[in-house]
């Protein structure tokens, strides 16, 4: 049987060692082709051009030493098997290399053809095996996710039917029912809703796991969201005679967060708190600033329940974890709620944790980033450590033509925002996160690193792109205004950080003016209004 040629890339700087290895390889039973280079850089270049069957790697080269050498090769070509050639004195290092993904090592002192050949063959086989296992694992994960998505869809169909008929009966649309019957049906409905929540969580957790969970951060007032949560959870708290209170720091800044997702987190935490607090207890939702961490807002939910034991504390945010103390509370759910909370908070750049003593209640706390305009502006408004020469503030205002707006107004506005993001230069313009909207109209702001004259082409682009949204012209009217951001001239002497702060302050002032319906810079006429 014809043996395929083994292509060996030998990276070895010592000519004597290199010759010896080459000789041993050629002496062997199988056809080999050896490409020998003396430096790591040459080796990496060669790997970029062609993929050998195996790499024989000396760790001490003129341009790289020790562990760095195999790490760089592994990083460059993770799929090519590596056999390290090691001196007698650094066998420990060679062993470490094997732990980190190198297939094998050989001691240079006693190389035989047999030995070398077998090592190479095993390395190649093992690498292929690992790759195929990896592929299988990937396929399995993909299959599992598809399966989850499919199952959640299939479960919803009969659930919808149950939901419809139960509510038909409950609403008396199929004839009058007795109070007892109504009670029984309400119990069915409650279970239907629990089942629904579980199906939703399953899909959500699958999304979180595959990185498909998305958030759409806005600039928002957290206090309002907390009020909304408490209003929604009030009936459940009253039913158990549990006090539900709010404590919001008046100095709380705006936060950058997805309102729907954070509402989900808050409801989940408050719902848990109510569930695990005995009657007559209390649940408090607080939001405050912490001096040591001024860029984040801290939100906490405290209860007077039985607390969570230390062993569960470390695991409680893990997927599918069930607190053994909580399971007796008849239906504990799937153990996905806190996992989903953690993933949502993490996507926002915050963290979530738990403080609890058994018998003393628990406090769940999470953080959300402040809305900080300088932080958002920093990556786009400076170039080579200097502030760019000119800026304009563009306001794109959409107003719904039907009042109240149609139900998909929110989606239309979202679609426009995404189009807007595609109309700007990502490296020098910034579409600001949307502000709270006033129902029938939505304003988006763009800080663009350009002057009034040159902004015209951007405006044209925005107009053209928005006009392509189906039915855009029948759904809303569009107004675009552009204002120059006039910065104080003495600013040049300040540090870049201060300059960005000044720019952010100016922009904030202009937006505030603009949202109050006044011209954004009443004192100067540098403005174009390309709507007419």
């Amino acid at each position: 049987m014809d043996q395929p040629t083994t292509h060996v890339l030998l990276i070895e700087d010592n000519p004597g060692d290199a010759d010896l290895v080459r000789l041993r390889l050629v002496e062997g039973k199988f056809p080999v082709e050896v490409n020998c280079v003396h430096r790591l850089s040459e080796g990496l270049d060669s790997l970029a051009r062609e993929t050998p069957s195996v790499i024989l790697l000396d760790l001490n080269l003129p341009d790289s030493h020790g562990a760095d050498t195999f790490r760089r090769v592994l990083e460059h070509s993770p799929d090519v098997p590596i056999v390290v050639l090691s001196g007698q004195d650094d066998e420990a290092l060679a062993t470490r290399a094997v732990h980190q993904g190198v297939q094998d090592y050989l001691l240079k002192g006693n190389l035989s053809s047999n030995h070398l050949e077998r090592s190479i063959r095993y390395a190649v086989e093992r690498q292929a095996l690992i790759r195929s296992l990896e592929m299988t694992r990937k396929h399995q994960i993909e299959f599992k996710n598809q399966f989850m998505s499919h199952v959640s869809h299939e479960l919803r169909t009969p659930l919808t039917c149950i939901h419809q008929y139960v509510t038909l009966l409950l609403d008396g649309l199929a004839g009058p029912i007795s109070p007892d019957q109504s009670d029984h049906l309400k119990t069915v409905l409650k279970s239907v809703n629990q089942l629904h929540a579980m199906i939703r969580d399953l899909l959500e957790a699958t999304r979180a796991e595959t990185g498909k969970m998305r958030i759409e951060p806005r600039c928002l007032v957290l206090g309002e969201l907390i009020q909304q949560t408490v209003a929604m959870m009030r009936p459940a708290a009253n039913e158990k005679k549990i006090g539900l209170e709010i404590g919001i720091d008046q100095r709380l800044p705006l936060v950058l967060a997805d309102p729907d997702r954070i509402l989900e987190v808050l409801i989940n935490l408050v719902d848990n708190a109510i569930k695990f607090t005995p009657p007559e207890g209390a649940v408090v939702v607080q939001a405050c600033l912490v001096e040591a961490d001024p860029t984040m807002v801290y939100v906490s939910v405290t209860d007077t329940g039985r607390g969570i034991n230390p062993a569960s504390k470390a695991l409680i945010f893990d997927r599918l974890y069930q607190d053994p103390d909580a399971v007796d509370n008849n239906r504990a759910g799937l153990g996905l709620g806190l996992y989903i909370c953690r993933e949502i908070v993490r996507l926002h750049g915050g963290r979530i944790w738990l403080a609890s003593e058994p018998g003393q209640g628990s406090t769940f706390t999470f953080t959300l980033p402040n809305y900080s305009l300088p932080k958002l502006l920093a990556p786009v408004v400076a170039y080579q450590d200097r502030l760019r020469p000119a800026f304009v503030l563009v306001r794109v205002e959409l107003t719904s033509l039907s009042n109240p707006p149609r139900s998909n107004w929110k989606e239309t506005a979202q679609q426009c925002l995404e189009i807007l993001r595609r109309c700007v230069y990502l490296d020098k313009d910034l579409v600001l996160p949307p502000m709270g909207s006033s129902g029938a109209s939505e304003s988006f702001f763009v800080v663009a690193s350009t002057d009034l004259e040159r902004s015209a082409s951007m405006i044209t682009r925005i107009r053209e792109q928005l006009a392509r949204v189906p039915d855009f012209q029948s759904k809303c009217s569009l107004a675009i205004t552009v204002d120059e951001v006039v910065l104080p001239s003495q600013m040049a002497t300040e540090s870049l950080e201060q300059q960005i702060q000044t720019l952010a302050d100016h922009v904030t002032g202009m937006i505030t003016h603009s949202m109050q319906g006044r011209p954004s810079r009443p004192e100067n006429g540098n403005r174009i209004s390309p709507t007419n």
Partner: protein
Amino acid sequence: MTKQRILVVDDDPDLVRALRLRLKANNFEVSTATDGYSAIATAQKEHPALIVLDLGLPAGDGFVVLDRLQNLDALAGIPVVVLSARDPQANEERALKAGAAAFLQKPADNEELMNVIRMNLMPEQPPQHVAWPV
């Protein structure tokens, strides 16, 4: 005032029956269809004020129906509320782009469904023409 007619399209006849009852109780006339082909045929015959549309349908799925509706002059203006068990993350935007007025995931809250239907019903008067700024 004459009652407005709603066309309910879903391949689950049990659900269609329940939705018919619910919509009748909310003062609507109701027509039904259980596949894509008869959905278009019924819409052409009855010219409903609004269509509640499932996505997974035999003989032309919901997207095919949306596409047909958009391309038939007589039907293009009818608002469509999609009511589907499918994942909104993968289908909502697509449905709205295909011309749907709203997307609700099953099981939907009845009150929400009725609100969405009422909000999207065709107005009695054609909308006032608003000049498009150039």
